[in-house]
């Protein structure tokens, strides 16, 4: 009896992963058809790349000048990103509503256990946050004198962490600051907004992940800006503005870029790459490794030092003031290794079509972390061959689905 129920749960975990991956693919194919028949993209592989890039909220684009596109197509791109963000929320809701001990819930921090009693409530709560953030950003952007269409374009790309540029529409420093703020907001754990509204202050106080995330952002903003100031490329004010914007853009894996970062000092570039790898906090719309995992991984490392000296020492690993079970910690560290395995393999395949090592690594990182334009590679996405574009599309999907979706066929049917 028990084995039977376990079995059905296993099936459901796998089925859900497969369904989500399929949903991403089907929507991408529909959108591919739209691009193809619109006549603006003549090559199906390119259209597919553009579609996956939007749904996975990556934001790389085969259009060199998006402002040349007709209004409807730009809105369509933005809407795809926004729907992609919503689908990612569905995956998160599913993970959070899985019963503890279920393999799907494997990496859910205890703070978020039973965020919703069922998938439906969890999803509804997350979407509520999503809608509020989107609406607020649209209003604020209109208040900073953007046209309604531009405001929609920017808001959809920002709140979903897609980061596809609708063209140079952010003209004022104020609108840039608003976008930066919302990139930050959407990369913070969504359940916290719900708790804040419901006045569950205990849940908020215990959340060390967000505190550390904000600390990291401030530290990186200071370092990146300082590096820009010292390099003398920009004025002091521009350096701080650009440095902070780009840091938040990369941490939230949005990938908006106000200027070409390939001319920035390599120290700033290296920090921005690390920011993208780390990503935002867990159960937000940011992609990447996630701060929660990094916290646990750093604790595992410091534990490994203690154990070298005191083999019998018992060191607890805490996240959000709660003990992390061994199995969960193990899954988180395996995630990191898996992530870098995909990074290595992806870079190797991309290197067949890239002009140098740096762009192979950057293109792969940009796809796998769903960041998009926060890395420095020449803007030649459109000149890459179809095979490379499809590989990059796969990497985007793998990154968005927290890696494991595409491991399902590889792990065999040993159940």
């Amino acid at each position: 009896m028990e084995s039977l129920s376990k079995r059905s749960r296993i099936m459901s975990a796998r089925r859900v992963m497969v369904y989500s991956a399929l949903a991403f693919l089907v929507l991408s194919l529909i959108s591919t058809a739209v691009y193809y028949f619109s006549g603006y993209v003549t090559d199906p592989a390119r259209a597919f790349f553009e579609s996956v890039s939007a749904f996975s909220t990556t934001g790389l684009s085969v259009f060199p000048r998006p402002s040349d596109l007709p209004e409807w197509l730009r809105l369509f791109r933005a809407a795809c990103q926004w729907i992609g963000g919503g689908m990612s929320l569905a995956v998160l809701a599913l993970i959070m509503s899985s019963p503890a001990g279920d393999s799907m819930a494997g990496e859910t921090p205890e703070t978020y256990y039973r965020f919703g009693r069922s998938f439906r409530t969890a999803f509804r709560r997350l979407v509520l946050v999503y809608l509020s953030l989107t609406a607020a950003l649209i209003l604020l952007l209109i208040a900073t004198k953007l046209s309604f269409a531009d405001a929609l374009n920017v808001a959809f790309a920002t709140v979903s962490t897609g980061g596809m540029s609708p063209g140079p529409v952010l003209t004022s420093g104020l609108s840039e600051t608003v976008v930066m703020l919302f990139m930050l907001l959407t990369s913070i754990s969504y359940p916290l907004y719900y708790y804040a509204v419901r006045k569950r202050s205990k849940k908020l106080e215990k959340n060390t992940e967000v505190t550390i995330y904000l600390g990291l952002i401030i530290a990186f903003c200071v370092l990146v800006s300082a590096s820009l100031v010292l390099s003398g490329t920009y004025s002091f004010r521009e350096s701080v503005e650009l440095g902070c914007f780009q840091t938040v853009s990369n941490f939230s894996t949005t990938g908006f870029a106000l200027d070409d970062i390939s001319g920035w000092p390599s120290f700033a570039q290296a920090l921005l790459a690390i920011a993208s790898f780390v990503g935002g906090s867990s159960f937000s719309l940011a992609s990447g490794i996630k701060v929660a995992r990094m916290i646990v991984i750093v604790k595992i490392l410091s534990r490994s030092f203690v154990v070298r000296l005191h083999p019998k020492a018992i060191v607890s690993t805490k996240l959000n003031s709660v003990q992390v079970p061994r199995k969960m910690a193990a899954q988180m560290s395996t995630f990191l290794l898996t992530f870098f395995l995909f990074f290595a393999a992806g870079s190797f395949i991309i290197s067949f079509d890239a002009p140098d090592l740096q762009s192979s690594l950057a293109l792969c990182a940009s796809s796998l972390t769903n960041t998009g334009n926060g890395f420095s590679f020449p803007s030649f996405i459109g000149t890459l061959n179809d095979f490379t574009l499809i590989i990059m599309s796969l990497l985007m999907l793998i990154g968005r689905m927290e890696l494991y979706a595409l491991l399902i066929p590889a792990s065999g049917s040993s159940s």
Partner: protein
Amino acid sequence: MILNKRPVIKVLMAVMALVGAAMLIPAVVALIYKETNVFLSFIVCAVPMIAVGLIVIKVLPPGDNNTLKMRDGFFIVAMAWTGMSALGALPFVISGAIPHFIDAFFETASGFSTTGSTIVGNIEALPYGILFWRSFTHWLGGMGVLVLTIAILPMLGIGGAKIMRAETTGPTMDKISGTINDSARKLYTIYIGVTVVEIIFLMFGGLNFFEASTHTFGTVGTGGLSTHSESIAAFGSVYVEMVIAVFMLMAGINFNLYHYLFTGKPGIMLKDPEFRTYLGIIFGSTAFISLMLLVKNIYGSVGQALRYAFFQVVSIITTTGYGTADFDTWPIPCRMLIFLLMIVGGCASSTGGGAKVIRIMLTFKLIRRGAQTRLHSSAVRPIKLGGKNVDEDTLSNVKSFMILYLMTMLIGTVIVSLDGYDLVTSLSAVVATVSNIGPGFNLIGPSCNFILFSYPIKLLLSMFMIAGRLELYTIYIMFTRVFWKGNK
């Protein structure tokens, strides 16, 4: 005091005296080539080191407690390697061959850690005695001066078991013999044997004794410092290249396996899963790279392509770093593969560096298991290697090592990028030093050197070389609070 001072000092003094004694050999070389100045600079360093070392060991009365704890072991190993590199740098400075101390420290750390990164541009301009010392540090570092000291430790009345633990490279599943002293003796008998054979082979290829021995030191220690700027390409001989390639390949194999080979149990060696994977990676990568070289018309014939590809693959995976061709001009996928091989490294208990083949194998198995546990909440299945279950403690050690290695790469790149060179140069500088390779890519490619970095970065890279050689933990642990806090 958290350290058992007296035996720790004794061991360190013994190491110092040994390094001093080792300097007498390049002194003799300098004398033969009539380099008086160089000869004197070795003597000036060697005599005080030997004298002080021996006197301190004699004068220090034996304490009541001569046991070495874990903590002492880590401290000795970390101090010994750093101290050896600092003292070994002195002849470079005194003779004026490398005037700045940090440059000399970098060069010596590169030697003892068997890395092979150099800051010298015009190598041929260096005197013979200095060139010999550069290569000889590889040989000493290769097996670890400490393994040698283990053999003389009984004379100091100190057991060496704890040191061996910090020193051995990579996880191993079995010991070849019961006592540490025995296995140390066996290991270095094999080591010396291999060295002598290679020198003879190279001399058959027309190299003089000086060239044959220096390049042998670089080979069996998997170091890679050559006496020529063009490295092995300077000889232009297929025979020499193949001899060196085969010996590099041998140096990258777990030395414990040779014991089985010589005691008539070659089956154990051939069935060893790490050994087989190692060979598989070498032949697979060689096939891929030579194919790419042919397709892209870098070399005209299959023979040429195979010759350069095989040498470079072996040189990189064993973390030696000798060159017969500038791989930084090869097609991008070849470079990417070479970059990945730099991370893999040789087998456990070989003289090679890197993450080690066995750890990469276990990492793949861990990733596979991770995917399975994501789908099945059922009990964790054991991971097997060569038919045996690998215990969970070893696995979590492997995991934390790999993560520490990745973190070193990422954070190291950020710091090195402060010098303002491009990211590939910065990243490959970290990988080339932590993995003990030698050359990297772009500005530090095979035809360039490390002189361009600022002094603080050179010090950091030297530390990475030593840390990489000592499996990261031994050095990093010195910077943790838990190390300096006493036992409660």
